[in-house]
């Protein structure tokens, strides 16, 4: 769960968490239906979907990219599919197994709550992280005011 109480609290957060807050606030302000990180060969591309159209956004900062997926995992409540027990006896060097996951990221802005449906396709590259907002209009005004307050104090 991500909780926004005040701009001062946001400044004390780690850079990746702060980035996630600011991204969600700006997407809520823009009434986005979806936020999507797409993994490409040299990092992550970022898009938001407004009225059915995907708009490319500035990609996450370089310092955030390596910890992006983990930051979202820690903020969200996710579940992986049931999987039969297997033993991997051979594989590519440095290969690792990450399950696909779906779940929820609950965002709380000054006591108001919104649930974003999260889906993680863990492949790197060509995987993605999508955050879907069911009712993007609900917190638009509050998100705009919150962002304005944050950047005013900056």
């Amino acid at each position: 769960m991500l909780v926004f109480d005040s701009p001062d609290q946001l400044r004390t957060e780690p850079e990746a968490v702060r980035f996630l807050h600011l991204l969600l606030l700006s997407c809520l302000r823009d009434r986005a239906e979806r936020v999507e990180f797409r993994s490409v060969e040299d990092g992550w591309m970022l898009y938001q979907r407004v009225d059915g159209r995907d708009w490319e956004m500035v990609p996450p900062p370089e310092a955030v990219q390596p910890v992006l997926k983990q930051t979202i995992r820690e903020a969200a409540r996710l579940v992986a599919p049931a999987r039969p027990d297997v033993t991997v006896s051979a594989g590519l060097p440095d290969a690792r197994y990450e399950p696909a996951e779906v779940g929820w990221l609950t965002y709380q802005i000054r006591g108001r709550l919104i649930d974003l449906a999260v889906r993680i396709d863990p492949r790197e590259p060509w995987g993605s992280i999508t955050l879907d907002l069911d009712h993007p209009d609900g917190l638009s005004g509050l998100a705009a005011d919150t962002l304005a307050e944050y950047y005013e104090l900056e």
Partner: protein
Amino acid sequence: MLRYDGPADAPTDRPIRRLLILVLLMAMRDRADRIGFRYTPDLLSLWYRVDGTWYELVPPPVVIWRDVVAEIRRASRLVSPELGTGWRSAVRRLIARPTGPAAGWLTFRLRGRDRLYVVQLDPGPARGEVLLEVAGSTADDPEGAEAALGELTRRQGGDLCVEFDIPPDTRK
């Protein structure tokens, strides 16, 4: 997990389980990539999407909606949103599990091969939806599904139906 190894896995005395198995088999046979149950107090509709086009199937009786949701919850691995803090969270606690929205995975095992569905479940109260979406790179066996449906049809004397025990005053 829902599994089908033979007709005994779609028993006529468990109609909700049987309905789900039949829908999953038909969806696999027809290469549908999404299945949707949509609920309003007047209608429960059943859809699936093939090549980007949604097709409506014969609607099940609306009174089985809660049982369908409960069966999918039992068969799936789901997670609910967090409840938050503050007074608004108290309201969420009232409508949260086991009746609130959930997301997760449903595995359908057809004769040992697993097909994964991403589940989005919003049970209502006024409007509800369950969406099952085939996860990428998962087992697909249309011929196996067709064979299973043929087996079930033969077992039931050439008819593939599900009978629900519905009280007369709730029939729609």
